[in-house]
């Protein structure tokens, strides 16, 4: 009796679904990507209370050495020389939209006098709410999660 020849085993790795997986990943990245209006590199302070900041909020960032950048939330941030320019910027933003929230993105090591000048300008411009941008505080074993005493 003549035996039927065995079917030939395919030795290649099946790669047909590779493109599907890759395109799924692409869709994930495309959906989650968000374009930041302010890319200033700062070390944010840590807090336990962290509320979601509304989209399209205006940004004021202060670096460790006191450099200030502003953005109305629609375009990339631009540097400004000092708090007086923040006041004129904020006044323009509030005039266009009185309920516009402001986000203060300041380095945790910046001396408070720089922050004071910016907050004062925002108050004078009649801003209604300021969000202090922060990172999630890590809870230590002690449970209270603070970093008191420096």
């Amino acid at each position, binding site marked *: 009796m003549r035996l039927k020849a065995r079917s030939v085993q395919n030795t290649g790795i099946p790669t047909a679904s*590779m493109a599907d997986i890759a395109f799924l990943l692409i869709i994930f990245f495309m959906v989650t990507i968000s374009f930041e209006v302010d890319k200033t590199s700062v070390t944010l302070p840590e807090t336990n209370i962290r509320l979601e900041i509304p989209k399209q909020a205006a940004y004021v960032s202060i670096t460790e050495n006191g450099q200030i950048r502003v953005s109305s939330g629609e375009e990339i941030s631009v540097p400004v020389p000092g708090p007086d320019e923040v006041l004129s910027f904020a006044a323009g933003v509030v005039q266009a939209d009185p309920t516009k929230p402001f*986000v203060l993105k300041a380095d945790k090591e910046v001396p408070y006098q720089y922050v004071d000048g910016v907050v004062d300008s925002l108050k004078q411009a009649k801003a209604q709410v300021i969000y202090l941008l922060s990172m999630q505080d890590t809870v230590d074993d002690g449970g209270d999660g603070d970093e008191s005493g420096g």
Partner: protein
Amino acid sequence: MKIKKPPVSDEIPTSSMADIAFLLIIYFMVTTTFAATRGLDFSLPPEDDTPPMVEKEEAVLIEIQSGGVFVVDQQTMQLSEILDYLKPKLERNPKKPVIIRPQPDAQYGYMVNVFDELRQAESKIGMKVDNISIPTQREIEMFWF
């Protein structure tokens, strides 16, 4: 002599599809930045409000010095002790004003730590600190002197 033609494949070549897709993935992975989109809200008084007149002596004054030294009503204390100090005062007067006054050379991070601690009063001591103010230097000069 008849030349045999090679068979023409009737399939769309998809072998390079994965390469293109992975290139796109690498592009998105490199350009993606995880933006910090959360923070502490700090509501400012409405425009038509007259500034609340608070006697300095009636309020709890938290001064923040450089290096994270917290002086509460002239007593140096740790951040975690502030709420315990405030609790009996809040029990007597739930509207007790608390003023945060960082020194000009104090680091901003410590002000945020104090503000965050006061905002957590409800979960930590069961009482809310309703009246927190962080006056600016200009306001202090205008209203305190």
